[in-house]
């Protein structure tokens, strides 16, 4: 479906151009009967459920990556490289944890991401605060199969988030743009 430059319609105005191209993807759209029972979304959800047997190992790998990134911080301090890797490891857990069945780990990871993004100076962040986040994720991932872990993990994640928010609010008291970003509502449905 290569673009046909000759088919572009360009309208020029004082400060902008409006460019309309014929929709090259319209050919993939087809009409089906209302009674069509094929449901690609349901099929995809089943396929995703079929992957769930691997989620525990994947989550463990993500948690190990986070631990390794934290170990690098402890060994070499907050360099551009070590800070970036810690953030990416936490960021990936934040995005994947719910899918993998570890929502509380996602909450803790998000809290850690917020610390990394919004702390004025990472060297000034109390090291136990970061360590508690990393250790909490390890614990949540390791202990998930135990019956009482759901409520415990939830309580742990809420408390950590509260402590982190208090720290960030104080550290950013003179940086309103960061306060706004820290306390703005999330766009993720259900949050």
């Amino acid at each position, binding site marked *: *479906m*290569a*673009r046909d430059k000759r088919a572009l319609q360009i*309208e020029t*105005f*004082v*400060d*902008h*151009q*409006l*460019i*309309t*191209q014929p*929709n*090259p*993807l*319209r*050919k*993939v*759209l*087809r*009409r*089906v*009967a*209302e009674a*069509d029972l*094929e449901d*690609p*979304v349901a*099929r*995809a*959800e*089943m*396929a*995703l459920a*079929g*992957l769930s047997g691997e989620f525990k190992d*994947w989550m463990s*790998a*993500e948690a190990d990556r986070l631990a390794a990134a934290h170990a690098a911080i402890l060994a070499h301090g907050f360099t551009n490289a070590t800070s*970036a890797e810690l*953030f*990416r490891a936490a*960021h*990936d857990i*934040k*995005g*994947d*944890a*719910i*899918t993998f069945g570890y929502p509380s780990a*996602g909450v803790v990871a*998000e809290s850690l991401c917020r610390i990394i993004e919004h702390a004025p100076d990472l060297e000034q962040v109390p090291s136990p605060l970061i360590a508690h986040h990393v250790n909490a994720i390890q614990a949540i991932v390791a202990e998930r199969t135990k019956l009482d872990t759901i409520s415990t993990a939830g309580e742990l994640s809420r408390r950590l988030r509260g402590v982190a928010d208090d720290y960030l609010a104080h550290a950013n008291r003179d940086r309103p743009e960061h306060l706004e*970003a820290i306390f*703005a*509502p*999330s*766009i*993720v449905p259900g*949050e």
Partner: protein
Amino acid sequence: MFRIDFNKLRFLVCDDNPHMRRILRTLLHSFGAREVYESEDGANALEMYTHYVPDIVITDWSMPIFDGLELAQMIRQPESKGNPYAPIIMLTGHSEKRRVTVARDAGVTEFLAKPISAKGLYQRIMNVVANPRPFIKTKTYFGPDRRRNSNNTYIGPERRVGGEVEVMQQPSLLEKARSSI
């Protein structure tokens, strides 16, 4: 009711996380897609974009060295060798509203916050297939029209000057098809 023939679409997926690439590949294959190309970084994705000419790009934001935002900006270069009009769906763990604005201003077509869902991904793909937006070129922007809704009362500094064509109401493909019944 309308369905997409995914076997006629070519996708480029860009994410540095192999688990997420596996999930996306599984979802797209389940929808019926047969051509799904994968890249683990933005620079390689840009090369693959030029080489394979995908119909739709699905990219993560946060990647080392060359991230999804830069990938979108490079794709949207109007003078680039590749097609600057391909829909770009950004799938990301970033959940702050300001991120949506930043992605939009980089030329991203659709934004999908993780956790990923089959329904959410399908809806975004349906949207770019059935409701394509015209592109806007200004001194500082080239990409899909960023307006979701018309607002004739806006008189701020970003009001574009366009006379009677200031607001374009474009019926979607679905609406056109239904009206032709």
